[in-house]
């Protein structure tokens, strides 16, 4: 079953609890503060890196109706967890893989460090640990360990939690750390089909509040992360030119031709060689015959 996250950016106030909780959950080191300034506002750091798997990007958008003439929009950016990820199809050793709950996770024991995933991703998500002598690829994995792994706090003060309490705990724990930390309900974790329904319900209920598009519904074949916004997505630096083709189909066609091509080319070369040999034999006989006639 595919799960995902719906990010309703109209509900986001830019508190960055998600960004902090992600660092905490994944034990990522801090980065030096680096403010990008207008129109990026308080965005810090400016982009994803091996030690930052999600950032809240701040947008100062000129809008005469907004107070002070500037409308502030915050977009939490992280891996989109594509339904058919380019990075997964690129990986020669299946180090990147789509987990059963929809996240694209990474297995550092398999990775050879070729960085083809970094190239392949249309969103610029995978990053490498450039400062390390053994550089892993780092990216958001939709908290796969948290959701798929054993819950760490099943027991409290040496007493096993009673079943109802444990269920409550599981429900509140088994979601990405960023979603759990979200203070305003901008982030919702749930089943992908239900999130998509919810997104369209919101668009219909309040058409004036939203730009009429669910980003991630069809982009690159669909993604597990869905966005709603008040302003058109290109104004928020989202790529709207990626098309709806799932990236792996670009290479799958070419690679699917490999087995028949190997056999076809082999057979053709064999045939060509037989012809060439026949031609050479005929030419030799011809020459011998002529040689026999001359004296």
């Amino acid at each position, binding site marked *: 079953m595919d799960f995902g996250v719906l990010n309703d950016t109209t509900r986001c106030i830019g508190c960055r609890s998600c960004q902090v909780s992600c660092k905490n959950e994944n034990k990522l080191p801090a980065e030096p503060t680096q403010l990008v300034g207008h129109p990026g506002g308080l965005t810090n750091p400016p982009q994803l890196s091996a030690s930052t798997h999600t950032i809240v990007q701040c947008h100062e958008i000129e809008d005469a109706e907004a107070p002070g003439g500037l409308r502030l929009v915050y977009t939490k950016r992280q891996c989109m967890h594509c339904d058919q990820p380019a990075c997964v199809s690129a990986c*020669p050793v299946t180090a990147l893989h789509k987990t059963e709950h929809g996240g694209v996770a990474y297995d550092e024991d398999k990775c050879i460090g070729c960085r083809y995933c970094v190239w392949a991703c249309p969103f610029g998500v995978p990053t490498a640990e450039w400062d390390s002598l053994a550089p*892993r690829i780092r990216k958001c994995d939709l908290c796969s360990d948290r959701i798929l792994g054993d819950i760490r706090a099943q027991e409290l003060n040496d007493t096993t939690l009673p079943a109802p309490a444990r269920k409550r705990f599981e429900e509140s724990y088994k979601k990405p750390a960023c979603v759990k930390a979200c203070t305003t309900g901008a982030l919702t974790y749930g089943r992908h089909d239900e999130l998509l329904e919810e997104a369209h319900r919101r668009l219909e209920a309040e058409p004036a509040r939203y730009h009429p598009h669910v980003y991630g519904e069809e982009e690159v074949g669909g993604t597990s992360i869905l966005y709603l916004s008040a302003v058109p997505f290109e104004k928020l630096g989202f790529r709207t030119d990626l098309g709806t083709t799932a990236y792996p189909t670009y290479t*799958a066609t070419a690679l699917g031709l490999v087995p028949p091509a190997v056999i076809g080319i082999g057979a053709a070369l064999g045939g060509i060689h037989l012809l060439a040999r026949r031609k050479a034999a005929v030419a030799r006989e011809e020459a011998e015959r002529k040689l026999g006639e001359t004296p």
Partner: protein
Amino acid sequence: MKFSPAQGKLLNATNVVALLVMLAGVAAIVTRFALGLGGSTNLSDTWPWGLWIAFDLIWIALAAGAFVMAAVIYVLHRQKYYEIGRSAVLMGLLSYSFVMVTLIADLGLPWHFWQLGIQRPEHSAMFEVSWCVGLYVSVLALEFAPVVFERLKWKELSRYWRIHAPIYVVVAVSFFVWLMSHSALWAVLAAVVFGMLAFAFRPKKGEKQGPIMLAIAAFTLSSMHQSSLGTLFLLMPDKLSPVWWSPLLPFMFFLSAIAAGVSLVIVMKVVVGKSFRRPVEQRLLAGLGRYVSAALFVFLAVRVGDLIYRDQLSAALANRLFLVEFGLCGLVPLFLLMVKPLRERAPCLVTYCLLTASGVILNRLNVVLFGMQLRGPMPGVEAAAYTPSLIEIGVTVGLIAATIFLYNLGAHTLPVLKAREQE
């Protein structure tokens, strides 16, 4: 046809320089591992690949001469070209070996390379290239083995090779097909077809016959990995300029590799003939020139047709890099190669071949570096710049020097070059 090792001093000025640069390259590789990728290269999350990958793509295209020559000599049965064959295969073997060395330097976690042997990705172009190049290097080594046997007078091993090399080809190709298709049916089909070929072309007593199965495998595997290097870039339609990105990129990589590879064989033949004072037959070179012009013609025709079909021709014509690649290093040598009196003069032929090879080199640079429109990591606000570091350049130049030095070493110790008449 007789072959003999080159005479004269191995350590002449050229080779001493090559040896020194090669040692500098070794130092650069050691530094790369001491400092790590980030410390020794200018690569970044914006530019995860750089000079080394460009070098690999160029070197593999230029080394295509080995498989084309094997196909011409054995499959097409044009034995007059045999005198170039050994040289071309040695050059191919060295080039591919050093591509693998560069890749090891380029990988972040090269000690995990064995994972390539146990994982089965669904459809990864990188997986295809890794296996295909690996198997092709083994075929190149087998193609070159008789030269070593001849030098060491290992008659027994030579007979063993004649019988078993075709069997190896059948097994290797079928295994490769199985890896790529995930299907036993395809693998069995490949085994049947290549098995039938091996049986039809089995070495017969009293009949002198070349390693046809190795030549067929070399061509098949080369056509696959040359094109798959293009497939790598099909995943980047959002980054690579539409002047270069095309669904036909794999096919165009294959065609241009043939043009570049044979060009390099011609240039090499002239240069080596000069420096080792071995005979260079003009007609032979002109004949090879025809293969270059044929491959170049098809490549350029597909290129133009594809640009027109995708409505990118006007964008391409406004692009200076494209104009140099396509016009100066494509159309110009093509027209000159088609003129017979010009084709048959060695200095002219070498010039055209150098132009053609430069065009293909520029094509690979455009695909890997210059044609890329990058935005940097998400959210894509800061694209880093890239110029190769001293270490990156050192490794690349060092390996080019190593190829030249080891080729000369091979030519001096093994019967690689055609003997002079009096020998």
